[in-house]
């Protein structure tokens, strides 16, 4: 990739991009998903599950070190040959598009339920996707900055949730470890999906200015994400208890509703105002990475055709997001996409690493 300031990010921005990609709609349902398996020890599962994205980050970072200027598309065609490389890249792009379709749909569903009950989902999704396209076509640098800004807003959201702690019942939290090791390990799988987003390093690695800080940046970001998840889950468990959480699709939103502050009365307002940022952010990030990969796959000029690709990818995400007819189906697809996260984050880099080892001699020649 040529040096291009529009597609250059600092390692600090990488932290925020990773946080922004990972913390998506999943955070609202996370307490339910995890506590369904691990009961009140959900937070232990969340901490343990961090190892999955960390492993993935480590592998991708190593690959990046080996080929510091190649994105996944270029890497795949170099390592796997033209035919298999293309299939590999297409798989990656399809995964990104499907993933963000689900996020977009879920985000729209939540918006529809809590803010605009009368407006059709298609209109809400369209509004979100238009703003996503507008932002994503500005390039990685702007996306990095926006992620940074939105991160601080997200912190504000977390503060809103803290208000509900006055309703906390500490007995909900005990006994610690009572769920048992087996249950906690069983909960690891659904929890790992919440960390989907590390795969963005495949695309952003060549854009980072200080490559030696990438590993550190990733771990810091994953640490922050973990703290977020643990806080949200612990608050939910403390306030509602494991049984009640299961009755809500999005327990965290219920938390925001519970909060009662004098004069303003309901803090949900602040939560929902910031909410759009939480939905749009991962879609922006992955719309960008999908469009960027697509531009490279089609061997187009990044400067000229990237914006067009963003529009194309954005429209595709929009159309796919409208396919499932109801929320239950969307949640089912979300699980499938969660599985494919493991393929992209673990199997993909593993495969590339294997090829690197097997082809050591041949690569050296070229």
């Amino acid at each position: 990739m040529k040096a291009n300031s529009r597609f250059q990010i600092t390692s600090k921005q990488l932290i925020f991009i990773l946080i922004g990609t990972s913390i998506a709609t999943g955070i609202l349902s996370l307490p339910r998903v995890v506590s369904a398996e691990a009961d009140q020890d959900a937070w232990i599962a969340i901490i343990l599950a961090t190892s999955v994205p960390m492993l993935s980050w480590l592998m991708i970072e190593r690959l990046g070190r080996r080929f510091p200027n190649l994105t996944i598309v270029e890497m795949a065609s170099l390592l796997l040959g033209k035919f298999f490389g293309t299939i590999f890249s297409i798989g990656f792009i399809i995964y990104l598009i499907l993933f963000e379709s689900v996020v977009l749909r879920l985000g729209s569903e939540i918006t529809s339920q809590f803010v605009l009950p009368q407006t059709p989902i298609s209109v809400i999704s369209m509004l979100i996707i238009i703003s996503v396209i507008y932002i994503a076509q500005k390039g990685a640098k702007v996306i990095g900055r926006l992620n940074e800004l939105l991160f601080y807003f997200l912190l504000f959201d977390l503060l809103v949730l803290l208000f509900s702690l006055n309703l906390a019942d500490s007995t909900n939290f005990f006994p610690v470890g009572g769920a048992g090791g087996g249950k906690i390990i069983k909960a690891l799988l659904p929890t790992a999906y919440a960390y989907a987003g590390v795969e963005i390093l495949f695309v952003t690695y060549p854009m980072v200015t200080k490559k030696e800080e990438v590993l550190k940046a990733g771990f810091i970001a994953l640490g922050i994400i973990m703290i977020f998840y643990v806080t949200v889950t612990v608050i939910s468990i403390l306030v509602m208890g494991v049984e009640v959480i299961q009755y809500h699709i999005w327990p965290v939103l219920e938390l925001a509703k519970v909060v009662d502050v004098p004069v303003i009365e309901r803090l949900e307002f602040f939560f929902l105002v910031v909410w759009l940022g939480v939905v749009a952010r991962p879609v922006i990030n992955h719309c960008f990475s999908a469009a960027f990969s697509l531009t490279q796959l089609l061997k187009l000029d990044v400067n000229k055709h990237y914006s067009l690709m963003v529009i194309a990818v954005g429209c595709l995400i929009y159309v796919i997001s409208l396919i499932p007819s109801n929320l239950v189906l969307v949640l089912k697809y979300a699980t499938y996409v969660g599985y494919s996260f493991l393929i992209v984050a673990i199997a993909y880099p593993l495969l590339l690493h294997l090829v690197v080892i097997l082809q050591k001699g041949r690569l050296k020649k070229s």
Partner: protein
Amino acid sequence: MKVFKKLFLNLLNKDCKMTESQADCLENIKLPCKLTKKMEMLKPHIIKNKDIVTRSFYIDKDKDLQVTVIYIVGLIDTNILNRDVLKRLMMSYNRKKMKKEGTKLLIDQISRTLLSVGQVKKVDTFADLLQKIFDGLTIIMFDGLSEVLSIDIRGGQERDISEPTRENTLRGCREGFVENIDVNIALVRRKIRDPKLVVEKTIVGRRGRTDVAFLYIEDIADPRIVKEVKERVAKIDIDGRVCAGSIEQWIEDSPYSFFPQILATERPDKVAAQLLEGRVAIISNGTPSVLILPSLFVQFLQSPDDYFERTYIGSFTRGLRYIAFFLAVSLPAIYVALLGFQQELIPFNLIVSLAESRKEVPFPVAVEAIIQELIIQLIIETGLRLPTPLGQTVGVVGGIVLGQAAIAAKLASPAVVIITAVTTICTFAMATSSISMATRILRLPMLILASTFGLFGFSLGWLIIFAHLVSLESVGVPYFAPFAPMRFADLKDSFYRNFTWKMENRPVSIPNINKKRQGKKDRKDKK
């Protein structure tokens, strides 16, 4: 025409090679010795202009040295011309003394001993001579000498230095920029008496030929930024003259943005402070406002008073202005979104009184707000342009009659009038007019978004505004710094202002080559 020009040029100067382009030729023509020939050359250019004065006289009683003075009426100070140029040449010329030196040095002799004015330059090409005349300089031509003298005694009627009308302060200095570029530069010079303060001048505009000056402090400003600014100004290819506003539009990074990316100010103390932070100032002749680059979003919400008042007061007013910015853009939108869509988020008692007041209003809340918004925009626009007494009348008519009468006629609810009024006040609470204008434009789209999609539209609007702000750059410097990219070191002078003595380093958001601003305050007195 072309043939004539060629002939004319050929006649004037046979050495001039016609292989060169004609423009080059014209520039390279050396002036002839004979005064009559010089006048002949000038004639086609000045004969039609009745404001050009040519005055011929002999500076020698024996009439062998004829002199012609050319100037434009109204552009020069006639007193100085009469006293220090004409009188000196006519009366004080000492032939014997001069003749000793020979004719070759005569011109130097005259400029050194006779002309008691500051700026005297020798001119020897025709193009230069012509340009100097129209730049307003006074030309003295001698018979028998090819070189002519140009003296700068420009003057004429000009406005005095007065208080800046649009940027008042409580404790700041009371002087503001005027139209004259030299006075403006001097005003800044008085504030920074540093040899490193560089003043570079250039001329912009093919016909208008405006003087434009770049001011920066050599050992603070980043040379790359200085270079970039100069290049951008050099690229302006405009026919007429430029003013600060048009330079701004020619050189800004994102012309399609609502937000001002270059700060314009009328205050020399503000310019001095900005220069010391490593920025570049552009002063253009003829406009009392000076451009400062690179400018950040935070600068548009800064007022000099924030620094003159004590820290807590300064921080308070600064914070107030950020709130004002937020409200000016979004208060009507919030009102419409809450009342039209998310009534459940309004506290119960409040919604009862709001509903009561809206009981008999026939319009939906969105329409009501949009009508009020349009009316207030019209009142603002009218009030800004009218002379003061008339403007007040419009204010009274607009405010009392439209507001009070509309409520009485049940065409608007009191709440929406209050909201509009608060929004308007917020619009003008911001320190610079250019950001006020931006909020005035942004308000309506926000209102429309909120009235179609409620709170969701409201947050959508802000998401796009933030994304836009973050994507802006001013001379390549991120515009929304120190917020995004977050620069913690610079936060101390953003939405609040830290103690002056704690700002030891210059802002990192503006690239500079000299980080340290000041020493630490000696605070031994406090333990």
